[in-house]
C-alpha cells in the first residue's frame, strides 16, 4: 500500500517483555529481548548462553536458491516438488520446527511415503526406548520446583544443555513441602560453575564417579535401598557414599532423579536410562521419587508428540508402506540418509544443516545465513519459530506446550507454509481413512 506521508519515527529499541524462549525445552517465558534496527535482537534479562546466542542470530532475509541460483519462492517450491515427486526413498528429517511445522512436515512425509526423524532424537530415543520397554515414573518441572526435597542429578550436568535448569527450577525453595528444604546430589558428574553459583544457598554433594558407569552407580544405589548398611561401591564411588545416599533417598519426601540422556557418553546409553528408571521405581517402595528425563532442544519433544498423535507411533518411522512402521534403529535419520534418494531437511531453529553423502538430493529449509558444506538442490530460507512467527512448542517434560509469539518481521515464510506449498505442488491424491 503506497503512502505519500513519511513513516513516523519509531522509538528504538523496541523492548519485548515476557518473551517465550523456544530453544532448549525448559520453556523459560520471562525473557526481555531488545530489538534494534533493523532486525537485530538482544536478550537483556539473562545470560543464558542458548537464549543469547539463538536470539542474536537474525540476519536479513535472503532469496531461495535452486542449484545455487536465487529464485522466487514459488519457483523453489515447484523445484522441490519436482525432485520429491520423482524420489523413491525420501527422508523428511531435521524437523527443527514448531507444532504447525511438524504437522505440515508429517503430512508431506505421509504424502511421499517418507521416513521421518528429528535431528536431535538420539537423546530422546535413549529415553523412549526405556519408556516403551518398561515404562517409568516421571515428573514435571513445577513438581521439581515445588515438591522436591532431594534432587539427584545423574551424569554430566544437564545445565550444559539446559542452562537455566537450576536457577529457575531448583534454586527457589519448594513451596509445597514443610519445611521447605532441598538438597542436591551430583552422581557421576560435576556441576558447572554456573550451577554451583545458582545452587550457592543449598547443600550440594558431588559424588565424582566414572561418567561411563552411571548405570552401575544407579544399580548399586537401588540395591542398597533395602538395607543401606550392605551397600557396595561402583563407578569409583565408595560403598559408604552409596550407603549414605541410599539412606537419604529413603528419607526423602519427594526425590527427583534428573538426567540428560543426550549427554551420556557410554555405548547403549539407553541401558543407563533403564537403570535410573529402576532406581526410581525401587525408591517408590520406600517414599515418593520420580524421574525427570531432560531433552527438548529444537522442539524435539513437541515434534515427537505430534508424530505420536498423528501416527500412533513416535518418530523414526517409515510411512512408505501405507501403515506407519516404527523402527528406532533402521529409521534413525543418520542411517537412513545413506540410502535415501532425496532429503527434506527442516532446521528452523538454528542455521545448521549436516553434511550429507556426496550427490544426495537435499531440499533444505533453514534460517538465512545457514552455512552448508555443499550447496543443496533447493534452499528455502524460513523464519524461526518465536522470532519470525508465533509458534507452539513443547517443554522438555512433555506436558506443557507454550505459545511463543512473533518478535520481528524479516519477511520470511514459516516452515509450515513452505512445506504445505510443496505438498500442494505435488500431484494430488485423495486422502483415505
Amino acid at each position: 500500500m503506497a503512502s505519500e506521508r513519511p513513516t513516523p519515527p519509531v522509538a528504538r529499541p523496541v523492548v519485548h517483555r515476557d518473551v517465550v524462549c523456544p530453544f532448549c525445552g525448559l520453556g523459560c517465558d520471562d525473557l526481555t529481548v531488545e530489538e534494534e534496527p533493523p532486525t537485530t535482537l538482544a536478550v537483556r534479562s539473562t545470560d543464558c548462553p542458548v537464549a543469547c546466542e539463538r536470539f542474536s542470530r537474525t540476519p536479513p532475509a535472503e532469496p531461495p536458491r535452486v542449484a545455487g541460483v536465487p529464485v522466487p519462492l514459488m519457483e523453489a517450491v515447484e523445484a522441490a516438488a519436482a525432485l520429491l515427486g520423482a524420489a523413491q526413498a525420501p527422508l523428511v528429517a531435521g524437523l527443527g520446527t514448531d507444532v504447525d511445522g511438524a504437522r505440515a512436515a508429517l503430512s508431506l512425509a505421509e504424502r511421499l511415503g517418507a521416513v521421518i526423524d528429528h535431528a536431535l532424537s538420539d537423546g530422546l530415543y535413549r529415553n523412549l526406548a526405556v519408556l516403551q520397554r518398561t515404562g517409568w515414573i516421571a515428573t514435571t518441572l513445577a513438581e521439581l520446583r515445588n515438591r522436591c526435597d532431594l534432587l539427584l542429578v545423574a551424569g554430566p550436568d544437564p545445565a550444559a544443555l539446559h542452562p537455566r535448569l537450576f536457577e529457575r527450577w531448583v534454586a527457589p525453595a519448594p513451596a509445597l513441602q514443610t519445611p521447605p528444604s532441598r538438597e542436591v546430589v551430583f552422581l557421576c558428574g560435576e556441576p558447572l560453575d554456573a550451577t554451583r553459583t545458582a545452587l550457592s544457598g543449598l547443600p550440594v554433594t558431588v559424588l565424582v564417579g566414572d561418567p561411563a558407569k552411571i548405570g552401575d552407580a544407579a544399580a548399586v544405589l537401588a540395591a542398597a535401598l533395602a538395607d543401606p548398611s550392605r551397600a557396595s561401591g561402583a563407578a569409583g564411588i565408595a560403598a559408604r557414599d552409596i550407603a549414605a545416599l541410599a539412606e537419604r533417598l529413603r528419607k526423602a519426601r519427594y526425590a527427583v532423579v534428573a538426567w540428560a540422556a543426550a549427554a551420556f557418553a557410554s555405548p547403549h546409553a539407553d541401558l543407563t536410562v533403564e537403570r535410573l528408571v529402576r532406581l526410581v521405581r525401587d525408591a517408590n517402595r520406600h517414599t515418593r521419587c520420580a524421574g525427570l528425563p531432560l531433552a527438548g532442544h529444537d522442539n524435539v519433544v513437541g515434534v515427537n508428540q505430534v508424530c505420536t498423535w498423528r501416527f500412533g507411533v513416535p518418530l523414526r518411522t517409515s510411512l512408505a508402506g501405507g501403515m506407519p512402521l516404527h523402527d528406532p534403529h533402521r529409521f534413525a535419520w543418520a542411517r537412513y540418509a545413506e540410502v535415501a534418494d532425496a532429503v527434506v531437511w527442516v532446521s528452523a531453529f538454528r542455521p545448521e544443516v549436516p553434511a550429507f553423502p556426496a550427490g544426495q538430493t537435499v531440499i533444505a529449509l533453514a534460517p538465512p545465513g545457514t552455512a552448508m558444506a555443499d550447496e543443496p538442490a533447493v534452499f528455502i530460507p524460513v523464519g524461526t519459530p518465536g522470532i519470525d512467527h508465533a509458534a507452539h512448542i513443547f517443554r522438555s517434560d512433555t506436558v506443557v506446550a507454550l505459545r511463543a509469539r512473533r518478535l520481528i518481521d524479516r519477511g520470511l515464510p514459516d516452515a509450515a507454509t513452505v512445506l504445505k506449498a510443496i505438498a500442494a505442488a505435488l500431484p494430488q491424491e485423495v486422502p483415505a481413512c
Partner: protein
Amino acid sequence: MLTKLAGGRVYDPANGRDGAVGDLFIQDGRIVADPGPGAAPDEVYDLSGRVVMAGAIDIHSHIAGGKVNIARLLMAEEHRAAAQEPCGCVGLATPSTHATGCRYAQMGYTAAFEPAMLPSNARHAHLEMADIPLIDTGGYLVLGNDDLLLELLASGAGEEVVADYVGFMLNATRSLAVKAVNPGGINAFKYNQRRLDVDETGPFHAITPRRILTALAGAVQRLGIPHPLHLHGFNLGVPGNVEATLDSIAAVDGLRLHLTHVQFHAYGMEGDRKFSSAAARVAEAVNGRPNISVDVGQIMFGQTVTASADTMAQMGNAGLAHPKKWVMMDIECDAGCGVVPFRYRDKAFVNALQWAIGLELFLLIEDPWRIFLTTDHPNGAPFTSYPELIRLLMDRDHRLARMAELHPALPEHTILGTLTREYSLGEIATMTRAAPARILGLTDRGHLGPGAVADITVYTDRPDRRAMFETPDLVFKDGRLIVRDGVVVAFLQGRTHVVEPAYDPTIESWMARRFDERMGQRLTHFRIAEDEMRGGAGLIRHACLPGAF
C-alpha cells in the same frame, strides 16, 4: 442448497419422535422446517425403511492429551501388529488422531469429549484434538488435586472465590466442563499417601476430599456450567468402594453430580471371593435422585490400556499390568497420570463380574436420560466396541449366550440372567444422542428439530444390532455427507465446544503471583488465546446459567 432426507423412521427423543416416518430437510448445515410443497430440494435421499437418528455423542472418551500419547507409546506392540494389517487401525486401544476421527464417524458419532484435560496439558490436548478429523471435540478440566485450589480451600476461601478460580480456569483452558478425579487423592499420592478416605485430611493441605467435592459441585452450580460436576470417584476398582460412591451422592446434598465410569465404583465385598456386585444399590440411589447421572464405563474382553489421572489408584493396579510395564507421572502441581496396559479376560472371575456389573447398571437404571453409554475408552475397552455393547443391551438372548461363555462362577454372583429388559431404538437414541447433548448443554445437537446442526446418522434396521450400529448407511456432519456404507467419503474439520462462565477477575492477580512464584510460567502464557483454537475458527460457546449456591 436444500437436501431432503425422505421417508425415514425418525428416532428423535428430544422432540418426542419415536420411529414415526417423516422427512428431514437440511439447509446451510442445519435442519430446517419442511419448506412446503413448492420447494425443490437439490438433493433427495430416499430413506424408506431406514432408521434416522441425530449423530451420536460420546460424553466420556480419552481421545487426546498427554496420557493418550503415553498410552500410544507404551502400546508399541499393538501398533507393530497393526502395521502388518491392510488397515490395521480398526479396534486399536490407542488409535491415532486420524483413526479416532474416522472410526467415530464410521460408527455414526459426530462428537466425542475428552473427559480428563489437565490444566497444564490443556494446550496440548486442544492441539491434538484439532488434528482429529470429522467430529466435534471438547475437554473437561481436571480440578480437585491442583495445589492452588486446595490451598484456597484450606485457607477457608468462600464459595464465591472458589467459583471465581474455577471460572478463570475454564476460560483460560477453553474447557466445556469440570471433572474431579479422586479429589485430594492424586495430591496426597505426591506425599506418598497410597489411600485417602473421604473424610481424611490431606497430608499437606488441611482439607478433606469431601470438602473438595462439595466445593467443586457448588462452584459448577454457581457458575451455571451446563454439565454437572463430572466425578471420577474414590477408590476406583477397590472392592467395597460402593460405600464411597453412595457417600459421594450424599455429600453433594441435592446438587447435580455426574458419576463417571460408575461400573468401576460399584463393587461390594460380599461372598466367598470378597468381590461382589453392588450395581443394585447404585441403581437404586440413582433412580431415586434426579440430580444424579452416570456413565457406565463398561468393560469388554480383550487387550486394552488404562489411562487415568488417578495415580493413586493406578499405582495400586500397576502390579496387574499386561504387558508388564506401566507409566506414572506427577504433573505440574495440578494432577497426574497413570497408564497401565490391561487385558480383560472372559475366563477370569473378576473381569467377568465387572462385565456383568456394567450391564446390570445399564439395565437397572431406569431413566435413559441419566445413564450414558461409555467404555471409558480405552480403559474398559476401545470405543470401537460400542456396537457390540449396544447389541448386549438390545438383545437378551445374545446377552445370555455371551454370559454362558464366561467364568463358570459368574451366574451365582450376578442377577444379570434374571434381567429381561431390552433397550429400544428410542432408548438407544436417548442414551447416545439426546441425553448427552442435554447434559452437556449442547442445545443445537443431539436432536433433529429445526435449527439443530445437521449431524445425522442413517441405519438399516437389522436384527443384528451390532452389525446395524457398526456400519451406518449414511453419516452427515454439518449437513455434509461424510460416510457412506461405512466408508469415509469426505473429510472436514470439527469444532471445539466450550463454556465461558463469568467470574470476578480479581482472582487473577493472586493467581498471577502464584504462577510467578511457583509455576515458572506467566499466567498470561497459561491462558489459551482464541486464535490458538483451530486457527481461530474453532470455538462453539455454550451458555451458562448461573444459579445461587
